């Protein structure tokens, strides 16, 4: 489904991604771990098409199509979803209104009519229930005054609404207490199918107990320096990242 080939990306002349290769197939869950500043969020943003980052070499291919010329919204319409590490606030725009706009814009791109209001409401109700979100929450301004945990839960709510093909969750676990973590992980698991894929970016093994990865990759200094099965995550948890860094510099 997703194929990343020798991807190099930089911002303000500074190279951050230095040759990433990654293949994700439908039905798989991949975890990307790595120390702070290794380039995890940058990788996510480049896949989503953030133009601030310049791709200097290599490419990102989704379902056999090079995404190079696709604007972020085109990629979204093709099923790429990013749960942001730091979701932004949009004052005065309710969660419901935002979701309605997002869904209808995606439908418009596919040549479909706006979703009828009753169907929209039904969908919102269903997904809010899945993530145990209070309905009152949905009329609040997007992310404005939300707690860290609420923001993350809201990201996954949006994912549930949009049913993406490829979901990238960037440190969705940070800021979540254990109950919220379980609810969010449960939501992600319910949405998983043989047709979609998930990339989980995290520091900790904790989330991976709930969303069990098929593969774990370690990103260090803009490169994937180690890949393995889910046991790699446990190893990292026990030993920290230092041994990886040492191995990488050898």
């Amino acid at each position, binding site marked *: 489904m997703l194929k990343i080939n020798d991807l190099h990306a930089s911002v303000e002349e500074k190279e951050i991604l230095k040759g990433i290769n990654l293949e994700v197939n439908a039905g798989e869950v991949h975890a990307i771990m790595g120390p702070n500043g290794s380039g995890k969020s940058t990788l996510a943003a480049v896949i989503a098409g953030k*133009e*601030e980052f310049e791709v200097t070499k290599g490419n990102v291919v989704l379902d056999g199509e090079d995404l190079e010329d696709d604007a972020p*919204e085109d*990629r*979204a319409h093709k099923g790429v979803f990013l749960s942001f590490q730091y979701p932004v*606030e*949009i004052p005065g725009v309710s969660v419901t209104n935002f979701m309605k706009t997002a869904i209808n814009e995606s439908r418009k791109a596919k040549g479909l009519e706006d979703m009828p209001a009753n169907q929209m409401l039904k969908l919102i109700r269903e997904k809010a229930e899945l993530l145990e979100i209070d309905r009152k929450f949905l009329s609040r301004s997007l992310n404005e005054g939300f707690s860290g945990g609420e923001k993350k839960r809201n990201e996954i709510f949006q994912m549930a609404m949009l049913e993406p093909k490829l979901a990238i969750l960037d440190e969705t676990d940070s800021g979540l207490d254990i109950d919220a973590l379980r609810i969010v992980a449960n939501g992600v698991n319910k949405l998983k199918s043989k047709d979609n894929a998930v990339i989980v970016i995290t520091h900790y093994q904790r989330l991976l107990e709930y969303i069990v990865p098929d593969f774990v990759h370690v990103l260090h200094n803009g490169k994937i320096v180690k890949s393995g099965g889910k046991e790699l995550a446990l190893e990292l948890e026990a030993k920290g990242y230092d041994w990886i860094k040492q191995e990488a510099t050898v």
Partner: protein
Amino acid sequence: MAYTEEELKKELETKEYEYGFYTDIESDTFPKGLNEDIVRAISKKKNEPEWMTEWRLEAFRIWEKMEEPEWANVHYEKPDFQAISYYSAPKAADPNKSLDDVDPDLLEMYRKLGISVDEQKRLQNVAVDIVVDSVSVATTFKKTLAEKGIIFMPISEAIQEHPELVKKYMGTVVPKTDNFYAALNSAVFTDGSFCYIPKGVRCPMELSTYFRINEGGTGQFERTLVIADESSYVSYLEGCTAPSRDENQLHAAVVELIALDDAEIKYSTVQNWFPGNAEGKGGVYNFVTKRGICEKNAKISWTQVETGSAVTWKYPSCILKGNNSVGEFYSIAVTNNFQQADTGTKMIHLGKNTRSTIISKGISAGKSQNSYRGLVQIGSRAANARNFSQCDSLLMGNECGAHTFPYIEAKNKSAQIEHEATTSKIGEDQIFYCNQRGIDTEKAIALIVNGFSKEVLNKLPMEFAVEAQKLLEISLEGSVG
């Protein structure tokens, strides 16, 4: 397309003015220039009684001695008042005709303005008076209103038919001597609307006036007078458009609102005069004096959505004379390209327990300058007066400016005055967030701007909130592809 400063800037420049068409109707236009003869000629053209002619002449003599004000934060080439024609009436216009008899070209113009007869029928609940250049063309729903004793008609008709009301109230809130443009307007006003709501009557529909400047080289000087008698209620909306022209056009209106004891007036404006082109050429100079007076327990709300004009100078104000009276000002002002707006309000608290609320939302893009200027004045006898002001500015790009000038003068120690101000910028991160959810940049900006303006949009009558929202989108359109 994703948003970058550079792209945003470029796209903003390609913005087109949606209402920039010109209807070729034969019109009856006075020679350019202003003197006592022209003032007399206007009065004669309107068939006015002697007292009105005298009133105008007095205003003209006051105006002659006045200087154009310079304190506003706007820079423009001063209009040459002798190069303007002070009267222009579409020849086909006749206020006594029904809409069915109106010149097809005029009807076509209404259609382009989005206020076709059909639409009026659809809106049912709105009585519309349309002023093209200087003359009211049609007033709908006159009969329905008459049954309630409501008078809604062009001011020129009111001068003929209800001279006692006009004489009693005109110039009482905005005197001829008030300021340069008000004096000019008093001398040469050519039309506008008059509205009187009798005691205890709740006006059953929105009253609406649509102003449009059509002819080149003309000025438009409307005069609006709204009187809400004791315990009455009215909601009034004015909309404006003008065609795109290279030269600047002058618009200097005066609006006076009188809310007697326990009455309430809601006055909403959607102002979309031609803002000039992307290079800053042309556009309307909008120098307007709007003021209302509240007697005991009365309430006046001004709501404005200002997206047009090259230069705006406008401070809808409330004189809270009666005890327990309430004044409100809700404003959205959008400036783009080279537009300049200096707008705000004055809340003059004279009575006890008077309250005022000011919510101002300024949105600036391109190279525009957007200033909020507000005065909250608490008189010595205004015990327990309260004011809350909130001024928020939203910036798009790095070349525009937002300025806030709040003035407070409190002469009574029991006054409570609160002022909040914020400035924010539409960030690339906000745009990318929306893009990532499948919302393109243009839609994203509309969404963010609407969210920013929501508190004010919510104050508009339902029928017009949607229109205003669309107008905001159009004004900032091209802020992207």
